[in-house]
């Protein structure tokens, strides 16, 4: 069985009409019905949370008040509601001790490659998640619309399927 991990660049299409939004909706519908599984990486959730807060703040700015016809804060609740369909990656990995020394791997990645700290955290988490899923005979699918990150994941994690909702059909 496939286990999906959504990157923020793909997840955001759930809340903003972009190329690939329908594919993301299809994935969430499958999640709601328990047809597929998904894991949530904390760093990706923080990035999504930060982006939604930025949107809410901009919308609530007194200079933009005239644009509002409803409350933008609902976006935060929708984000939370969506995240409940996903399993916390920590719950899967912590008990196995798989998160030990993750900091060391992140620092190594930052030393070796010209990537950002969030990229490094994502790669480190994905590698451990992939190892854990492989033991259970399950395959990790990373859904991402960030071309550079897609390349990095493909290069660092051989065997990890990388899909882009703009091009690929989901789930």
């Amino acid at each position, binding site marked *: 069985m496939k286990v999906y991990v959504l990157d*923020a*660049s*793909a997840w*955001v*299409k*759930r*809340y*903003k*009409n*972009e190329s690939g*939004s329908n594919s993301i*909706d299809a994935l*969430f*519908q499958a999640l*709601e019905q328990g047809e597929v599984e998904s894991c949530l990486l904390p760093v990706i959730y923080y*990035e999504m949370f930060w*982006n*939604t807060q*930025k*949107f809410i703040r*901009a*919308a609530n700015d007194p200079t*933009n*008040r*005239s*644009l*509002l*016809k*409803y*409350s*933008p*804060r*609902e*976006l935060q*609740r*929708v984000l*939370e*509601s*969506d*995240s*409940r369909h996903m399993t*916390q990656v920590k719950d899967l990995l912590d008990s196995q001790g798989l998160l030990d020394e993750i900091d060391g791997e992140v620092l190594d990645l930052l030393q070796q*490659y*010209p*990537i*950002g*700290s*969030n*990229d490094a955290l994502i790669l480190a988490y994905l590698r451990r998640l992939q190892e854990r899923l492989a033991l259970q005979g399950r395959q990790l699918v990373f859904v991402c*619309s*960030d*071309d*550079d*990150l*897609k*390349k*990095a994941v*493909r*290069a*660092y994690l051989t065997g990890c399927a990388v899909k882009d909702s703009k091009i690929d059909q989901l789930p």
Partner: protein
Amino acid sequence: MDEALRAADRGGSGGTIVLKRTRQKHPRSPLGIIRWVIGMNTQYRQYEVNHLPWAPFDWDYIGGELRLGKVVFRPLSDDALQGIDQQIADYLRLYFSRYRDLYNNPVNTITVCHYDPKHRGLLEPMTDDQRADFAAAVDVLTFCCIWGELREALNRGWRLLPPPNAETLECRAHRFSPDVLADPPMVTLVTHGLMHTEQVDKIFFQMPLPAHHRGKIQPNLELLELLNQVFNDSFDPQLRERLLRSLRWFRVAHRQAQALDAEIQIVEICTALEVLLNLPEHGKRKTFVQKVEQWITATEGEEDVVRVEESANQQRSSLTTKAGLWAQNFYKLRNAIVHEGIQSDELLYYPAVDAHDQPSQVSQLSVASLVYGSMLIQKVDEATGYLHSAVRAAVDAPAEERESMNQLYKRSEWGVRGCLERLGWVRPFVYTTEKIQSLRERWTELDKELGGVLSSEQIIAERQAKRTQPKIGGSMKE
């Protein structure tokens, strides 16, 4: 200096604040009588500077100042001291520089506050009535800061920083007369009713540990505006008196939030609820439960409220709301604390779920404070027919749209639906894909107007800015 003070005494401002003695009526409180007698006997001019030393308000977010009723709150700055006699201003700078944080650095959190924005009397002593108004304004501000943060934390299901408490918003009054300004400047301290004088530059006012608050306080400005209505002349004076009295208890309940007074805090917050709800002499618990049930069904709808079986005795059982059951047990807990004491600290906590539906615990103080705040807001909202500021601005919108906007906005400012879901008192709202698709249309439209804040391109661009050249994929392959 003397000339300036004499000019001030004559009522001439000459660019300085008028420093005339306020003609006071006979005070009612013992403290007031002492001040009155001292004032009569000594004929000294008294200055008074009220301040909140430890409250780290985010003034960039708030704006230059806060006004509640007739009380103005402003950050200590050169601007705040402008127009004051130079020697007094220098004395105040020295005095405030003695307020120290946990690292013994001068605090940058001092908020000066004074009564009546008309004369901006930073130095003017208050009458007893003014002092009562002033204390009420501090209570309201304390409530807004504490309750706003509590609501956000419960809504999110997690808390990044410890919450502010009544100590963080502690208000102090510094009274002094012109003779302390002399070299070296002195300060009179009152401890246990005894006064003694010290050189200002030899002492420090250390921040009490519970007052320490990491981060900045961003009070909910719309909530402040709503509660400001309580101070309007048109507001029912009896209701105002009751609400303000209950707010005083709310503040008291949030003192020493990190200390071992948790049991007593339950009694205090329960008193705040009793005063707010005007519970009758007899049958307090029953009425309290009824009021909580009425509140939750009215705000969240009958069908969404979770009901549980309540056993009255072994033969009979009936359905009650989960919130009502909490109210019943909470009041019993309060009685047990007052009369017998409780055996286990576990009773001071209530089960909830965190942001990821994992079991967690919330203090009974937090639950009761949430209920208290929501009911208080409901009362003020009902009494004033409050219109959200955005609705007031949307003058051209049709009446029907304004009404629905008003409800939506107010829910987003002080609604507690998310909190109640975490407590299990209402069913979680399920967002279906169809519902999200319809919301997405609105968000997309709004984002376009905002200039593209929320988009995959934006996320990718921000990431790119943190990456170093060459591009990461190519580099990794190499």
